[in-house]
Each structure stands twice: as C-alpha cells, then as structure tokens.
C-alpha cells in the first residue's frame, strides 16, 4: 500500500492512508513516554465517557418502564449476559463484568473511530495484543486454578486413536498459543484495513473525473465499516467466551 501511495504521489495524487493511525502527544512536545497524554488517551477517555453516558447516566432513573437510553443499556447488558451464559456456561457468569468491559470498550472504540478525523484506538496492535493477552493470561490462569493439572487434558484428545494423540497434542498446543495472535490481529487488521481503504478512496476524490465514484465508494465502505465495527467487537467477545468455556470445562 505504501508503495502504491508513493507511486501515485508522483502523479499528483496524495495518499496518506496510514497517517490517521499516528500516535501524537496532545500538548506539544515530541517525545512519547509511557505517561504522555496522546490522542490515544483522548479517544480512550471519550470511549469511557460514552460508556458512562450509556450505562450509568442512561440508566440513572431505574425506571420500571425504561426510557430509550435505558433500553439501550439494558439491551447491551442482556446481549452480553446471554452470550456469556449460553457460550461459556452458567458458572462463567462471574466473569461477566470483565467480558462486558472488553465488549463495551471495543465497540465504543470502533464506533468512535468511525467519526471523521478521529483516532481509532483499536486499529493499533499494541491495544489489541494487550487485550488478547489479557484474555489469554486470564483464561489460562482460570483453567489451571479451576482444574489443576487436568486442564492439560484440553490438549490430550482422548477420543482420538492413541497413536495420533501426541501429534494432536502438538497441534492443539500450537493452536492454543496462536489464539492471542489471531484474536488480536483479526480486530486490528479489520479496523485498520477499512479505515485505510476509505482514506485511499478519499485520495482519489481529488481527481474530478473519478470523484463521484470515489465518494460512492467511501459511502459504501463506511456502511461496511459500521457493520465491521460491531461484528469485530462481537467476534472478539464471543471468542473470549469460547476460550473461557475451554478453561472452565476443558474436556472435549
């Protein structure tokens, strides 16, 4: 993509599809230390504000007959609660606040990222890998705490022929450790690709001949991105539930 942009630039078009992902300090200075307040901080804070608005302010009236904003909060609660219960089992309900936190953060980060000129925190591997590793470490820890060494039975497929079991165990082990990788790359990759493609189309809009097509394409991509923003949050959450189910009930 970068070489493409490079080539096009020479022909008069300017493509900077990846500029939107640059992390910048908000209050001057160039160095980014671990505590520096950056656009990442700003957009994560906005996600927190949006979540508080929906889940706390929206439900503050505790109405028996819910208002619209309260309905949305209740809907989100019911959606994730049912997912945790159905996918991971009844004993996973105590992890519900944790999973709800992940879901709400990803869904709000994705949707806030769709505001033009905004910064999408979930398009960064640093963020998604941290999220995926959190899930991976938690799930593995829960697996060992709940089941002790019998958690390793997850890798020993007892329904397979004995000769195959060591090979399957290696495959299972690899797939287990690949989980956080796919878990994180899927989210960041989808979000980043969509945003970058929109930027590329936006670059083409500078040419008068193709600009109507380009604007149409941006509109279509935006619609798709709205879908992706929700679906990727959903996928991340449901995979977390699946992994949690493996940890709680490691038998195949």
């Amino acid at each position, binding site marked *: 993509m970068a070489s493409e942009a490079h080539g096009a630039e020479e022909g008069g078009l300017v493509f900077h599809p*990846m*500029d939107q992902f640059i992390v910048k300090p908000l209050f001057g200075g160039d160095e980014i230390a671990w505590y520096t307040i950056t656009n990442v901080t700003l957009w994560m804070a906005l996600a*927190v504000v949006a979540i508080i608005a929906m889940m*706390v302010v929206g*439900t503050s009236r505790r109405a028996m007959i819910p208002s619209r904003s309260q309905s949305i909060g209740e809907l989100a609660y019911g959606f994730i609660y049912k997912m945790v219960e159905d996918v991971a089992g009844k004993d996973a309900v105590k992890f519900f*606040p944790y999973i*709800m*936190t992940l879901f709400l953060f990803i869904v709000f980060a994705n949707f806030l990222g769709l505001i033009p000129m905004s910064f999408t925190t979930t398009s960064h591997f640093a963020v998604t890998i941290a999220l995926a590793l959190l899930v991976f470490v938690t799930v593995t820890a829960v697996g060992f705490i709940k089941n002790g060494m019998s958690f390793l039975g997850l890798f020993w497929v007892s329904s397979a022929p004995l000769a195959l079991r060591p090979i399957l165990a290696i495959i299972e082990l690899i797939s287990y450790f690949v989980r956080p990788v796919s878990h994180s790359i899927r989210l960041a990759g989808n979000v980043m690709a969509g945003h970058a493609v929109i930027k590329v189309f936006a670059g083409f809009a500078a040419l008068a001949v193709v600009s109507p097509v380009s604007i149409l394409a941006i509109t279509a991509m935006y619609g798709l991105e709205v879908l992706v923003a929700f679906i990727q949050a959903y996928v991340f959450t449901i995979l977390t539930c699946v992994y949690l189910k493996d940890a709680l009930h490691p038998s195949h």
Partner: protein
Amino acid sequence: MAKETTAAHGTEAAASAPGMPQLDFSNWGNQIFWLLVTLVVIYFVLSRIALPRIAAVLAERQGTITNDIAKAEELKAKAVEAEEAYNKALADARAEAQRIAAETKAEMQAELDAATAKADAEIAGKLAESEKAIAEIRANAVASVEAVAKDTAAELITALGGEADAKDVDAAVAARMKG
C-alpha cells in the same frame, strides 16, 4: 534532535518510507498504559455502578410482571367464583319465588273456596226462606180468595134476594174453586 524521531517517524513513514504507525514500537508502552487505565476505569464503573443497577432493574421488572400475572389470575378466579355465586343466588331466588307463588295461589284458592261455599250456603238459606215466604203468601192468598169468594157469593145471593145459606155457599165456592 533525537526527541523528534518518534513523532516525525510516523509522518515520514506514511509520506515517504513504507511503514505502519502500528509497528512503531516506541509508543506501545504509552498505548498499553492508557489502555489498562481505561479498562480499569470501565471495569470499576461497570461492576460497581452500572451492572448491579441494571440487574436490579431487570429483576424488579421480572418480579413485577410475575406478580401482576399472579394477581390477574387471582382476580380471574374471583370473577369466576362471583359469577357462580350470582348464578346460584339467581337460581335460589327463582325457586323461592316459584314456591311463594304456588303457596299464595293455594291460599287464595282455599279462601276462594271457603268464600264460595259460604256464599252458596247463604244463597241456599235465603232461597229456602224466600220459598217459605212465597208459599205462605200463596196460602194466605188462596185463603183470602176463598173468603172473598164466599163473601162475594153471599153478598150476590143477598143482593139477588135470596137467602144465603152459609153451607151451600161454602160448598158451591169450593166446587168452583176446584174446577
């Protein structure tokens, strides 16, 4: 200026050199730090305030719905009961009314019969009296006629110059009156 490298790197990377800001590891620590802060804040807000509140509201609503349905069923049972009581009362009242009507009718019939009998007896008594009076009157009349006839006959004989013999006159009048 070593400080500029981080910020400048992104712009230059997109503009000239191939590279993704995502792979600029120098700011990963910053991102992960703020991510953890964000997650902790969201987790506490959710687990302390939002989720218990929504759970309470949902439970309360469920309870209210269950209560309302139970109440409605109770009321329905009561309504059925009331209808049964009403029907029973209606049937009772109807039976009572019929009984009273029959009783009244029988009483009235008895009174009527008694009155009729009394009236019949009175009428019969009056009739007998009247007949007796009529018979008396008739007997009196016959006796009077005989006396008048005898007197008249005796007067007639005397007027015609004869001597009226009481025995003959009586016999003659009796003979005439028989005929």
